[in-house]
């Protein structure tokens, strides 16, 4: 490949932008996705009270407040050298299940699903929840709204506040559960469980029974053979709240398994001059550019990363679905980017099953929900956010103030893979200088599968993420701009 001079591209301030360079045949030589990254959190956090971190960090991202809240809380547990009581861990995990329920429902029905349910070639105006209603019916839509709200309500009951929990403290949680709340949560969880199964059935009917979709899922532009990463329990089953970080290779073999606090030994970050994003990679393999394969340290996280990094799901029905997905898509590891959607729905089912176990556990109403903290020091907390492994790493001084804070968020972990997926999708639709009409759709499908959260802490009006694609010819002249706002 020719060396690329990236003069038309400046580091991005503002909207999402994809820059595509064509070679002299008019085929895609390379493509770059640039996204506004929010900056300066480390500096912002310095000198703040350690116990405020779960509240502050939950504002970093408008999408994963719960994940940040608990990554921060777990980092504080470690920094203050305190092990929370069993009941507190269960309450945290139950809240976490509520978050996964609403987040995964939202993604499937509102964001990623419409590409399939309405169709990848449907106009963008139809590829949204209203298009889904048209196709799946108004009763399904009512169920979607109801169960997303149940997930929210479960987190609100346990977290003390809707959307942004306030319950996480070093050593435990500030709020337990009373019997009335247990009953409410039980009913909601049971209903969500039924809805998760319904959703997998819908995926079956609409996607898996349609050969064109299955072919699309298994097609080359949507295949990446990277390493995979995710938290696992002691039986190597997917876990969201606790466990060890496991890495598997392109054949599904375990290549590393380590505690969250050792992440810096295993993961380093590469900087590319065209992006503010950092590109994490496995240190043992090294950074060898934006390539997949065994010799590239790039890995994937999130539903498909977890699927491949684990040996199964810890609950019965989800595990059955797990096996079925592996069998249907040609065995593990599953490298089809669009299979993120299926893996996400299996996790939705898992979250409802796990929530059922937790809420039926008599220990959940225990009033022993916090242990006294020790002297502050350094601490690292890891959870699986809906979209992948999330790491908070703090140093706290003797006065309980933050000396240093470093965060590796899920979308950053996926940065290399997302960039490659966007490039490959573009390659699939641009041939010999002819830009297929479906370019934006196909590229969007590629990065939407990851459910990325780019600079999404902002609520400034108008919101959304306008996307612009600039296509340059081999002489670096701008040939075409396609945008959608």
């Amino acid at each position, binding site marked *: 490949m020719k060396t690329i001079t990236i003069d038309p591209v400046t580091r991005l301030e503002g909207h999402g932008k994809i820059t595509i360079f064509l070679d002299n045949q008019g085929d895609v030589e390379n493509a770059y996705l640039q996204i506004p990254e929010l900056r300066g959190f480390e500096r912002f956090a310095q000198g703040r009270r350690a116990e405020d971190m779960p509240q502050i960090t939950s*504002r970093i991202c*408008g999408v994963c407040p719960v994940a940040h809240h608990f990554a921060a809380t777990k980092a504080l547990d470690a920094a203050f050298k305190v092990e929370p009581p069993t009941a507190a861990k269960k309450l945290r995990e139950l809240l976490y299940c509520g978050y996964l329920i609403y987040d995964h429902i939202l993604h499937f029905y509102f964001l990623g699903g419409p590409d399939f349910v309405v169709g990848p070639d449907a106009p963008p105006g139809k590829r949204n929840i209203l298009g889904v209603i048209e196709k799946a019916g108004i009763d399904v839509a009512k169920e979607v709204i109801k169960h997303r709200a149940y997930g929210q309500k479960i987190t609100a009951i346990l977290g003390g506040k809707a959307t942004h929990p306030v319950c996480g403290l070093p050593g435990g949680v500030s709020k337990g559960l009373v019997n009335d709340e247990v009953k409410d949560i039980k009913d909601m969880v049971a209903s969500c469980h039924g809805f998760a199964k319904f959703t997998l059935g819908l995926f079956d009917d609409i996607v898996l029974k349609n050969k064109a979709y299955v072919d699309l899922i298994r097609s080359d532009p949507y295949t990446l053979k990277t390493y995979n990463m995710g938290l696992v329990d002691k039986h190597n089953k997917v876990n969201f709240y606790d466990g060890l970080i496991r890495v598997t290779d392109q054949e599904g073999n375990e290549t590393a398994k380590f505690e969250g606090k050792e992440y810096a030994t295993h993961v380093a970050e590469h900087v590319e001059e065209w992006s503010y994003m950092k590109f994490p990679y496995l240190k043992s393999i090294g950074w060898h550019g934006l390539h997949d394969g065994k010799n590239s340290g790039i890995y994937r996280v999130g539903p498909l990363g977890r699927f491949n990094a684990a040996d199964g799901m810890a609950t019965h029905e989800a595990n059955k679905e797990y096996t079925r997905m592996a069998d249907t898509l040609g065995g593990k590891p599953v490298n089809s980017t669009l299979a993120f959607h299926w893996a996400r729905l299996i996790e939705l089912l898992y979250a409802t099953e796990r929530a059922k176990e937790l809420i039926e556990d008599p220990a959940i109403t225990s009033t022993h929900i916090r242990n006294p903290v020790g002297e502050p020091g350094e601490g690292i907390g890891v959870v699986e956010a809906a979209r992948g492994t999330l790491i908070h790493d703090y140093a706290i001084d003797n006065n309980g103030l933050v000396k240093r804070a470093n965060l590796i968020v899920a979308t950053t972990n996926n940065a290399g893979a997302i960039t490659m997926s966007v490039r490959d999708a573009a390659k699939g639709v641009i041939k010999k200088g002819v830009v297929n009409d479906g370019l934006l759709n196909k590229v969007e499908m590629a990065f939407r599968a990851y459910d*990325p959260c780019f600079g999404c802490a902002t609520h400034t009006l*108008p919101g959304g993420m306008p996307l612009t694609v600039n296509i340059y010819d081999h002489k670096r002249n701008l040939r075409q701009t396609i945008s959608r706002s």
Partner: protein
Amino acid sequence: MKTIVLGVGNPILQDDGVGLHVIEAVRKKHLADPDVSIDTACTGGLNLLDMIRGYEKVILVDAVTREHDSPGAVKRFIMQDAASLHSSNPHDVSLAEALSLAKELGETQLPKEIIIIGIVVRRALDFGDQLSKEVKRAVPTAVRMVLSELKHT
């Protein structure tokens, strides 16, 4: 009329959080009224819809980015005229989409009127909890506009 004044924004993203600063000031100036709720939200789309359901009138106070206005300008919009304006993030639907969805589903608890008091900001990309000078100066104007909306309910 059952009304909610809702400041929307992110408290750790500089000017993005101006809606929250306005609400703080409104709370000090507005006398308790059983028909008026005052709240803040650091969220958008469907969650915002959950918060305004059941109110007849909604006054949203939020940061807006506008090409032709300079930071610190305060604008009043009516939700219907401003379908393209919304509070959302890439993982959520906009409030406008959430509302049309709710209408489609036959919801009856939707507000009759949604007013947006928008304070023009430049999009922030750095974390921080302070407002810029221009935007800080706009807070009293926005507060006055909110109070005047409340007088006419």
